[in-house]
């Protein structure tokens, strides 16, 4: 049953990859959508079965086959469904299905083979992502991990004839490899330390240890794993690939680079919550990195002019939030935010896709404006998404973000909390800057798109509306106690963050209601202030924004150029490697040593050959005589 979940999209991939070239768009699109749709249905059924089990032992495991069995290494290709992965598969298949449906309309201008290729990649991605979240050990997770990386590369570079797209794909791949390398090291260290790669077994062993007070093996393992996560989830220092990844088709950005794949790092940390909670040093680093990423990305997002890049930096920033939650030990809150974020960020990407689609590929915010009359569905759904991410009370983002900030504060990280609130303000600001620039005011673009703008076609509209409803309602499964809820999600997820035997020892930290309401007020205030700020600068007095950027031109340029991180990496890493390769490896080692050896062998063979070729008389009978001589000698030797 569990196996079916990744297998169905994989079958869709096989079908489209092998036959797709000859199929019309309707058929290949239907194949892909029904594959992921069926997977969604199976996922729902599986989760229903999971919910029927008693709370403490909620897990469905399936060992598909013994993968590696060599000496001490015994790894099964095992799948395991527990509350955490249940949530993940629902997000992946649910939102994935919507994005597939959306894509049928969005990609409609591609040729038949390209269309089929797109959908085969998308299905393959879903299959790998499901393997990633269902894997019961590090190795299976790693298969999914690498697989989604591959699909991400393929989809970023989907329009491979465009150099920037191909480069972005390569960049994503290379940067991810750095993280993956650390991840592999971490994985090996896990195996060396615990002798197993099963998550359950590792957690049980770790639970018996005391948390490390000084930096030790556990800290090293978790740090390596975290570096892997920074690659996949675009955190400092490896976040540079995600904004460039926007070269891919917009639905891909929505699915892979907002809703699912980039959250793999968060998921992985959540999956190993027991391990990480025993390494407080790493947790501190995670929290710091998370909040720094949130802030840095938020500030960059403030000045970007490309609609998708703004969203990309927003994604990085929100991922920072999730890592912050992980870093302060609020696993449930982090995953909660992951889940709500999937809705509204996918919604906003798809909305921006609808805008780009309507404007025939225009992505520059400075050339938009006033679109709310022409694209009402897109506008309203996008607005809901923006409100949700900004943290306006009542919408999904509010609950999850507030939960994170609350947990940060109550765990004693006041400074982190302050930065978090600041980032919340920034989030609201840049998001509404986007909304106001794109949808309000007057059109600043060329006249040629002036009329005949049409709103999202049905397939896209359906996805938008469903996601908008989700963005509103998704938060209500995690309403905190303070607001009269019971925080069901967190309770549901709780067993996943504990080792099997461990009892629910540390319950929820109960802060006073006053503090909780105060904090809520603060974040609400931040959201409202952010929106107001955006409204002032970009709706009321656009010239004020220009003036501000004039006055702080240094800061502005710094932000516009993303803190020069790409340039820094180029100077610090890329150029030295290139110089070494060219000077020492190519001209020194390759030309002198290797080519020299090869040429030397060639010359030697040539010399020997020019001697031996005199034996090559061309006379068959002379050869025969040689043969006979050999036979006679050999037989004679044995007779002797």
């Amino acid at each position: 049953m569990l196996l079916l979940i990744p297998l169905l999209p994989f079958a869709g991939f096989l079908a489209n990859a092998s036959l797709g070239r000859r199929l019309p768009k309707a058929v290949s699109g239907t194949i892909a959508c029904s594959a992921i749709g069926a997977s969604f249905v199976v996922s729902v059924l599986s989760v229903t079965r999971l919910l029927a089990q008693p709370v403490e032992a909620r897990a469905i495991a399936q060992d598909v086959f013994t993968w590696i069995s060599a000496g001490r290494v015994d790894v099964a290709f095992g799948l395991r469904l527990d509350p955490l992965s249940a949530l993940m598969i629902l997000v992946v298949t649910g939102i994935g299905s919507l994005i597939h449906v959306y894509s049928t309309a969005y990609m409609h201008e591609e040729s038949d083979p390209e269309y089929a290729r797109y959908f085969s990649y998308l299905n393959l991605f879903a299959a790998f992502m499901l393997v990633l979240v269902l894997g019961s050990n590090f190795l299976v997770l790693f298969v999914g991990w690498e697989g989604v990386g591959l699909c991400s590369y393929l989809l970023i570079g989907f329009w491979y004839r465009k150099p920037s797209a191909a480069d972005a794909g390569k960049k994503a791949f290379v940067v991810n490899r750095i993280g993956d390398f650390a991840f592999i090291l971490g994985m090996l260290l896990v195996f060396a330390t615990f002798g197993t790669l099963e998550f359950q077994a590792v957690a049980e062993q770790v639970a018996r240890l005391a948390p490390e007070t000084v930096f030790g093996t556990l800290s090293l393992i978790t740090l390596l794993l975290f570096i892997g996560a920074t690659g996949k989830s675009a955190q400092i220092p490896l976040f540079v690939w995600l904004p460039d990844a926007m070269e891919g088709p917009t639905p891909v950005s929505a699915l892979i680079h907002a809703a699912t794949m980039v959250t793999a790092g968060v998921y992985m940390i959540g999956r190993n919550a027991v391990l990480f909670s025993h390494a407080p040093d790493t947790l501190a680093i995670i929290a710091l990195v998370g909040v720094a990423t949130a802030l840095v990305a938020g500030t960059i997002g403030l000045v970007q002019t490309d609609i998708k890049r703004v969203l990309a930096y927003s994604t990085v920033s929100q991922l920072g939030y999730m890592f912050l939650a992980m870093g302060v030990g609020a696993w449930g809150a982090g995953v909660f935010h992951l889940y709500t974020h999937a809705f509204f960020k996918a919604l906003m990407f798809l909305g921006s896709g609808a805008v780009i689609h309507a404007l025939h590929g225009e992505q520059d915010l400075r050339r938009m404006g006033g679109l709310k009359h022409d694209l009402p569905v897109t506008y309203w759904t996008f607005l809901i998404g923006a409100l949700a991410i900004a943290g306006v009370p009542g919408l999904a983002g509010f609950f999850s973000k507030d939960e994170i900030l609350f947990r940060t504060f109550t765990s004693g990280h006041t400074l982190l909390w302050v930065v978090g609130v600041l980032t919340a303000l920034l989030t609201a600001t840049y998001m509404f800057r986007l909304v106001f620039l794109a949808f309000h005011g007057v059109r600043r673009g060329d006249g040629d798109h002036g009329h005949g703008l049409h709103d999202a076609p049905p397939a896209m509209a359906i996805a938008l509306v469903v996601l908008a409803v989700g963005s509103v309602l998704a938060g209500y499964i995690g309403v905190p106690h303070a607001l009269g809820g019971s925080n069901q999600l967190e309770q549901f997820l709780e067993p996943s963050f504990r080792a099997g035997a461990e009892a629910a020892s540390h319950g929820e930290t109960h802060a006073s209601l006053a503090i909780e309401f105060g904090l809520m007020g603060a974040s609400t205030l931040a959201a409202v202030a952010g929106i107001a700020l955006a409204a002032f600068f970009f709706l009321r007095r656009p010239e004020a924004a220009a003036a501000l950027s004039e006055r702080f031109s240094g800061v502005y340029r710094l932000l516009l150029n993303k803190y020069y991180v790409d340039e820094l990496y180029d100077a610090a890493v890329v150029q030295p490697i290139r110089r070494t390769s060219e000077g020492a490896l190519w001209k020194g080692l390759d030309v002198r040593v290797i080519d020299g050896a090869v040429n030397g062998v060639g010359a030697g063979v040539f010399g020997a050959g020019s001697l031996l070729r005199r034996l090559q008389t061309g006379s068959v009978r002379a050869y025969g005589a040689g043969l006979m001589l050999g036979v006679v000698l050999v037989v004679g030797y044995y007779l002797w």
Partner: protein
Amino acid sequence: MTAMAPLEHYLILSAILFAIGAAGIFVRRNLITMLLAVEIMLNAVNLTFVAFGRALGAADGQIIVFFVMTVAAAEAAVGLAIVIALFRHRESLHPEAFTTLRG
């Protein structure tokens, strides 16, 4: 059945035939006859197989003869085709006429 000749005699006959075939390659100056000499050698080997198979009471000797014959047929077909092709180029069947590829 009358008494059979001993196995050694079959083998000696086979050895003689093989030697005749081998010598034929060198004695004759005609590609076709040289191919015939190869056939003599193959048949000498066949005789050995059948004789040993009979001596050991196994059918495998005969089976191998079957395969040898198949290979011989393939060899003859390809060999003669090559001879024909060569003859078209040189109007000769002398083995020393085709030494263009000497070193």
